[in-house]
């Protein structure tokens, strides 16, 4: 897997929508690529913060 293919798959990885074999291939790429790891960490922080904020909004709306 190259960097371009890895980055295309980061969304599926973060939303836990990836098959186990595909996940293993991406993990193998990430283990050897510092740039893609950095990209994943940034995306991960964004998606986690977004999910937290969405929960807060949902609690406000449905209270």
């Amino acid at each position, binding site marked *: 897997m190259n960097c371009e293919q890895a980055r295309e798959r980061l*969304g*599926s990885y973060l*939303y836990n*929508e990836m098959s186990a074999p595909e996940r293993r291939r991406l993990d193998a790429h990430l283990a050897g690529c510092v740039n893609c790891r950095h*990209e994943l960490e*940034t*995306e991960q*922080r*964004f*998606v986690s*913060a*977004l*999910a*937290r*904020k*969405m*929960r*807060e*909004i*949902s609690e*406000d*709306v*449905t209270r």
Partner: protein
Amino acid sequence: MQVAEVEAISVAGQPGEAHIGESVLIRAAQEQDHDAFEQLVRLYDRSVLRVAMNLLRSEDDARDAYQEVFLRVYRSLHSFRHQCSFHTWLYRIATNVCLDHLRRKSVRKEQALEEDGDGAAAGPLHTTAADRPESDPERVFAARDVSRRLQLALEQLSPKERLVFEMKHYEGLRLRVIGEMLSISEEAAKNCLFRGTRKLRAALEEVRQ
């Protein structure tokens, strides 16, 4: 997470018995037993209202949608064949009703913008995360009015993008299930989710800079 909550409403602690009970209720309601239909509504009414509130963000719209959902359920219950779970079937109706509401709202908003002579409805959403790899996600969300801006950004998504995004985040549903409910492929649901996420990120970052 929230999927468990949704399922808990349908199983009420005793999965086997509750499903048998639900199935009996559905069959009775299909044979015009109004009490059975009322019990079925009571079993799911909070779940439907919660979904509508999350998707439509307006109590009035959510209540309209809620009534429309159960009206559609009442009219089409005879066509339920017990081939999928009642919850999936009901949820499909609820999301379709909400999608119709969002589409109508979106058309009204576009018409209003056209009347105002404002063609820039898309705003800053054409930028992507890849354009700003140096940005700091925590700082984006630390802004004081981020909730309001996030809600505005959600309104900029297409109805389908927004529905997929919110079903994923609020209901914790798998993309395969979301696709089934919206009659689109899993791949299309995935594209909606990722495109929506990119647009939200771009919109939130754009305002901060």
